[in-house]
């Protein structure tokens, strides 16, 4: 029997209904990603990379086609179950970090634990994960706007990791960082892949894409055959 992979897109399309007519941002994409793959998604601006990441991140549902993540048909589960999958199965890392401005670095990492267990963390897990991504402990109580870009991205990675998700989605994680810091972040992601995470990375930069073991090219919402 054919075992469903961790992620399966079967003929997935995403259509935006605009005043100027319908716009197909993802056009009949079929794709499997297995557990513990390290995949880079590349393509010109506007080719549908972020749209695809939003599907994988369950921030959106496909207009047509089927999307399975961790064995579940995303169209068939309730909105609350989708929310819980975002919390438990997926770690999302953004180009613009997107930390919660009113929370300290530590609280930003503790936050997903609170969402999951409905109480403050007493296990020391948030601090441990922050340490594991090389974040300076003395800065734990700083708010995001007091941190450099590299430090913010470390906090964001720690936040994505803290609930031990199977999948890490990284939408241009180095896009707002200088080259040196960018490579440091990529080293962290490589280490996480070695620990067993499935890493999906969107990038423009071929040097960054080299870290991945498989590259998917998108163009006008389609996968370019290799």
């Amino acid at each position, binding site marked *: 029997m054919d075992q469903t992979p961790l992620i399966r897109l079967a003929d997935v399309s995403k259509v935006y209904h605009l005043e100027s007519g319908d716009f197909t941002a993802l056009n009949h994409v079929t794709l499997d990603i297995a557990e513990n793959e390290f995949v880079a998604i590349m393509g010109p601006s506007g080719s549908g990379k972020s749209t695809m990441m*939003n599907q994988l*991140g369950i*921030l*959106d549902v496909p207009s047509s086609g089927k999307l399975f993540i961790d064995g579940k048909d995303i169209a068939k589960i309730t*909105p*609350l179950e989708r*929310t*819980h*999958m*975002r*919390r*438990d199965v997926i770690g*999302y890392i*953004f180009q613009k970090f*997107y*930390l*919660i*401005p*009113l*929370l300290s670095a530590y*609280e930003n990492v*503790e*936050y*997903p634990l*609170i*969402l999951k267990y409905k*109480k*403050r963390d007493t296990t020391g897990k948030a601090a441990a994960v922050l340490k594991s991504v090389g974040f300076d402990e003395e800065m734990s109580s700083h708010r995001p706007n007091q941190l450099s870009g590299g430090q913010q991205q470390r906090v964001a990675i720690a*936040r*994505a990791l803290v609930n031990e998700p199977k999948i890490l989605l990284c939408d241009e994680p180095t896009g707002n960082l200088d080259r040196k810091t960018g490579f440091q972040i990529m080293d962290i992601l490589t280490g996480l892949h070695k620990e067993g995470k499935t890493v999906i990375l969107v990038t423009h930069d071929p040097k960054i894409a080299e870290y991945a073991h498989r590259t998917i090219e998108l163009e006008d919402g389609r996968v370019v055959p290799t």
Partner: protein
Amino acid sequence: MRDIFFDLSVRSVRLNFLRSILASIGIVIGVVAISSMGMLGANMQLSVKQQLSSDVNTIMISSDVVRTTSTAGVPATSQGIDKSTLNDITNAAGQNQVIPIHRTNTQFTIGSTDGRGSIYGLNPNDITKFLTIAQGENLKGGDDALVGPNIASNFNMNIGSRIKIGQNNVSVTRPSVRVVGILAARGFASDGINTDNAIIVPDTWYTDHYGDKDVYDQVNVILQNIDTINQTEAAIDDKVNRRTEVVRISDASSRLSSISSTLGTITTFILAIGSISLVVAAVSIFNVMMMSVNERIQEIGILLSIGTEKSEVRRMFLYEAFILGIIGAGVGGIASLVIGYSVVSAMIGNTTYFFLPESILYVPYGMIIGVVVCVVSGLYPAWRASNMDPIDALRNE
């Protein structure tokens, strides 16, 4: 351990401190309006009740027709309570005091000043059973008279003053009475005997000049025990109104309850006026909450995209509204005590009842209403925040 969403709300309020405080001022005003108007109404009711209930142990019996004459010597034409009815009442009243009362309105002249007021004819022995003489002494008979404190001060009456009774008309010689005492103030008396503006003369003088011997305008029964009021009224009714409705029997308790229900209506009305200020406050809270939601669209996008439940986002904003409400209600509660106390003492002139539960409870009521109004005003903004599309919200700068 504190809820992280509560912490987020506290920090948001702190970040926009000035704006939050300004919005809370609306709630402060609303709470003050409701509490102090409520307290004003309650204190008004309490003090009126107190005044009325001093002679609440009196049953009033009157013929339904109001009897007035304008001139001394002209008897009232309508029917009063006659001798046999009075006997029936006395029998039915048992041990209790029965006080027959003559009453009409009259013009009078003191010195060269003309006036108008009530004149009561009472048996001198009955007077001290329910009236207090503040100055001078009780009637002995003849042309002695007692006067109420208002009439006395308005017309400069003293012990020994002579008052001519009846219409000032050159062709008629009027009888006169001599003031022997001045009564203590009674206010609005619930036994129907309002003596503050009245002249009280012996029943003999009254019937000599107005006629009406053995016909009374009102009979009061003063009860020894207030608990027997219903059975005594029933006994009188049974005896006197056996075949037809001869007299009207009433007591202050029904009057008391009708006055307090009127005052209750007035209180409700002024409370309703106070509530208008809460509507204004609700609008300002709503406005500030919408600003808070609109400024934090991207933050809401972050929260939703990393797995925050809609109900948790709603909770965060409802907490924020709640905090604004708590600030407003707290300050409003304290201000209500101060302002309420001043208003009550200025408008009622009596703060004896201010700290009684009936009055002071309006402060917590007002505070609770203030908080509830805030939270209700936050419902729509919170709902809006929780239903944002995370992708659109994230893109918002």
